[in-house]
């Protein structure tokens, strides 16, 4: 059954060096606090999955925590490049980064196949070169029509980390608004860590809410504001200025490392991080 415990303990217990980890969130509900905690605990050699790696993955890549990235779109949404991601791919700094590249369609289907514990998903080909460069995507002939489709090997992360608005004490998790691929990513993993805005006595049903039953949730960690600079609908606003500011912070290696030292390694938790960047 689900444990309710501090994020630091959950990360220490469930994400060792070399783990295969999906930290999902589609612009909304990005589990940034968990990413910081991985940096604080010095985790390395991670394989990270995410459809839309953004600032938090840029940070993990920039500190050298990531060996391999499985993804479909890597950018700073509405702003531009992820400079740490680019520096790793273009210059191998601070280490080389292996890319396994998808389109959104194959990435989402791979999570769905993992959630269903079948070895692969089937979908129509888009004829993108992306598939040709990904060994986890192979052609498949339809046994009825003879058409050539794509088979995409299932995603089966060791751990999926997501952020949700609420959980109850039993470990049922509720998220709403744009819920992206989080249900599939959670169901695809062996273990599921969820940071939440709050733990409540009873989860009042809400329109459009997704409920992840406690049976699939390994640990719930209360981390209010744990999505910053992303947001949690009903709890916080997206910090658009931070996304813009990240462009300059991340462009320079030294400035990036100083920022990480001061705001991530130099703080103990999300509350400390939020306090530290409020006084910049």
């Amino acid at each position, binding site marked *: 059954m689900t444990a309710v415990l501090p994020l630091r303990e959950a990360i220490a217990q469930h994400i060792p060096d070399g783990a295969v980890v999906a930290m999902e969130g589609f612009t909304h509900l990005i589990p940034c606090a968990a990413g910081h905690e991985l940096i604080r605990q010095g985790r390395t050699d991670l394989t990270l999955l995410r459809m839309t790696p953004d600032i938090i993955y840029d940070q993990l890549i920039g500190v050298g925590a990531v060996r391999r990235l499985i993804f479909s779109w890597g950018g700073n949404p509405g702003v531009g490049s992820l400079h740490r991601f680019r520096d790793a791919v273009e210059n191998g700094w601070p280490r080389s980064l292996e890319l396994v590249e998808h389109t959104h369609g194959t990435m989402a289907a791979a999570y769905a196949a993992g959630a269903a514990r079948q070895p692969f998903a089937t979908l129509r080909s*888009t004829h993108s070169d992306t598939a040709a460069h990904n060994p986890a995507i192979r052609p498949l002939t339809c046994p009825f029509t003879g058409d050539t489709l794509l088979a995409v090997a299932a995603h089966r992360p060791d751990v999926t980390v997501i952020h949700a608005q609420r959980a109850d004490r039993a470990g049922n998790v509720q998220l709403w608004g744009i819920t992206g691929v989080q249900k599939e990513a959670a169901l695809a993993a062996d273990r599921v860590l969820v940071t939440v805005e709050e733990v409540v006595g009873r989860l009042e049903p809400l329109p459009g809410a997704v409920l992840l039953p406690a049976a699939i949730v390994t640990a719930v960690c209360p981390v209010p504001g744990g999505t910053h600079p992303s947001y949690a609908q009903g709890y916080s606003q997206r910090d658009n200025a931070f996304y813009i500011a990240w462009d300059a912070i991340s462009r320079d290696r030294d400035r990036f490392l100083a920022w990480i030292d001061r705001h991530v390694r130099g703080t103990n938790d999300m509350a400390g991080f939020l306090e530290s960047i409020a006084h910049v």
Partner: protein
Amino acid sequence: MSDAHAATGEDVMTIVAARALRDRTLCFVGIGLPSAAANLARRLHAPDLVLIYESGTIGAKPDVLPLSIGDGELAETADTVVSIPEIFAYWLQAGRIDTGFLSGAQIDRFGNLNSTAIGDWRTPRVRLPGAGGAPEIAAHAREVIVVMRHSARAFVEKLDFVTSVGFLDGRDARGRAGLSGAGPTRVITDLGVLEPDADTHELVLTALHPGVTLEAVRDATGWPLRIADPLATTAPVTEREQTALHELRRRTALAHAPKAPS
């Protein structure tokens, strides 16, 4: 039109793209210019245009332009919000999208697009964000409108990477590949409009924006560009269009301005 409202290249691209959208159709929208064009169309001739963002919001009716695909207002104003696997399987792959917008760092004469890497994929000179949902839009939308700035670096003889297919190597290649959508039916740039030839599917310049010279377009195109005869001139931006776009941008800037510390 007053000088204060002089149309920039970006304005013209946005307005010409908005004009291309028919009311009561389903439009798959990305952030940036496509979102501006679609929301402008809603305020002009297409009040019942159905906006679908890849974040899963169907029928979003934002009052201002979203800064990201996942802005809360998209979810709050949508008819329904579905999961990402559902948007990609049941809506995009299923061919329900009438119009999809695409852009890219490079385009070739057959409307294929690169948004992945400049140079070799393994050792790129410039690493771009990658595919996202663009290949699915390119393959499955009933038609695609490409919107990008015209330059010889972008309109190239050969792509470094085909992220999203247009007409592949032309003629009936797209149909033979089993792709259901019609492909890129127009490419709207800051200089003019290109459309595929009915037989070869090579992009042909069919219209120049007002005040743009043919020479400027040729200089900004990295292949020997075919020109339609007769070559049209884009209808000038009307005051109503320009005002609606400025008003949308003004409200957007106001809504997204940093809040005073509380």
